[in-house]
């Protein structure tokens, strides 16, 4: 048991949630963070989907890492990822059709998400399955965390709702002149929200500041 949760394994899981966050520190997966975060619900689903796919792709690649010929490893990784993405896509279509429609091509485009290839190349190819699983889980959750924060602010300020429930669209608020901010629904504002998160993180973490 102690080996399962050794210091190294713990770090593989916790680092990407904080200090080595794939979105805010490594600046990977920005495209989808901008595209699907106008509402909180698709952001949430996208985060979960990516978490599952990274975690399992990491495990599978880690299991067969010694048999993959070096020259064609990218193709092998892509096949694994594409299979998982297709499975997740079908599940979404079957159970939450409206969300899958909202996410449209972005579920399919998880294949091209830099976080996936990055983790497979950098971690799963040279680590055992269990640490790889934790690493994938951590990176996926780190990505999901940022998506949820961005989605939260964009939906709250842009549409006045959260997960579709009304939060700010009341007559008394509109009477004193409050209006939803249309710019929050545009991708440009998602970029600024991500930038604010990065700003906040760097201001609080001395290690991340450039000298």
């Amino acid at each position, binding site marked *: 048991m102690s080996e399962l949760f050794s210091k190294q394994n713990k770090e593989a899981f916790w680092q990407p949630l904080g200090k080595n966050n794939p979105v805010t520190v490594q600046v990977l997966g920005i495209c989808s963070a901008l595209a699907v975060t106008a509402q909180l619900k698709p952001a949430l689903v996208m985060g979960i989907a990516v978490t599952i796919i990274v975690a399992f792709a990491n495990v599978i690649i880690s299991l067969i890492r010694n048999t993959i010929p070096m020259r064609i490893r990218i193709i092998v990784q892509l096949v694994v990822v594409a299979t998982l993405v297709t499975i997740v896509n079908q599940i979404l279509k079957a159970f939450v059709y409206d969300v899958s429609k909202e996410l449209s091509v972005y579920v399919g485009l998880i294949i091209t998400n830099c976080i996936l290839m990055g983790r497979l190349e950098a971690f799963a190819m040279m680590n055992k399955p269990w640490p790889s699983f934790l690493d994938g889980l951590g990176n996926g959750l780190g990505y999901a965390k940022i998506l949820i924060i961005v989605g939260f602010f964009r939906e709250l300020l842009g549409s006045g709702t959260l997960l579709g429930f009304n939060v700010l669209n009341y007559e008394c608020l509109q009477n004193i002149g409050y209006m939803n901010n249309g710019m929050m629904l545009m991708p440009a504002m998602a970029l*600024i929200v991500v930038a604010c998160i990065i700003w906040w993180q760097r201001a609080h973490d001395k290690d991340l500041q450039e000298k």
Partner: protein
Amino acid sequence: MKSLRKYLDSVKPNFEKGGKYEKFSQTFEAFESFLYAPGTTNQGGVHVRDGVDLKRVISMVILALIPAAIFGIWNTGYQHYQMLGLEQSFWCNFWYGLTIFVPMMIVSYVVGLGIEFATAEIRHEQVNEGFLATGLLIPLVMPADVPLWMVAVATAFSVIFAKEVFGGTGMNIWNPALVARAFLFFAYPSKMSGDAVWYGEGEAVDGFTGATALSLANSNMELATSKYDFWNAFIGYMPGSIGETSALCILIGGVFLLLTGVASWKTMLSVFVGGGLTAFLFNQFGPATGIAQLPWYMHLVYGGFCFGAVFMATDPVTSCRTEAGKYIFGLLVGFVAILVRVLNPGYPEGMMLAILFMNTLAPTIDYFIVDRNISKRRKRALKTA
């Protein structure tokens, strides 16, 4: 005056290092040097070449804005009572305009300067005068109806994200006043454009249509040019953002800016040439829509073209710095502005977008101009060697 000096001297120790209000040292410094010339001189190798410093440049811009601001204040009241179907005296119009303009100006100054002072204290830098012009420009490019809290949000957004994150006055890529306007334009379009936002509150009389000259020209060019003919539009009797309507007053300010050397005539002239030429080409070869057939000289006096050309495009920080670049920059601002007006019916006015777009490209233009100059001189040097 002596008692003021004495008071400042008596509270000064509190703001010095180790004092009670050490955190506010920059704020104190700003007020002191605003009221009195600083008692210290520069030390070491300084390179003062000119008596014109930032404070003086900003003061010139503010002076140049005054004619447009005064006309804008009067026109706001005039348009308001036109909507109500009333004829009012000059002072009545002016007074109504003041009740719209002054609160906006106070909000933009309080929010903007508040953020400027706060960042100056955080960075231990001196507060500078850059925002004083921006704070006056912001209410001048707003429609009369925009709520004050939106002005506050837009000012905060533009000062933080368009100015301070880049390093403050002189380091910004985009004109902060235009960023504030663009933010509101995209965030709250129903309060920033359309037919009803230019008049203040009240019920319009029957038969009153509030469309601006440009949106009218979009649908019916003849009606626009007969309702707002050239001289009316030139003097400024038309609805629009507070400061943008009067080409005459803006040009008075523009001449002042040119005489004092604050703005570059190259930028200003080439904006008009670029815009006029593009509109002229659309007149000759363009589609048969109303806005494309609007005579080119009307394009120059309608909407915010003049205001943008004189006060926004010439901003020395965000426009090109090379002399040849200023021509290219200006021509393209005029070109893009007319292009947006004519080809995108969704945006009746294109000046703001054109200037922000060209602000983005200005460093690239400068880069190529400098690069070309370097290679030209290198060739010459190699030939003589």
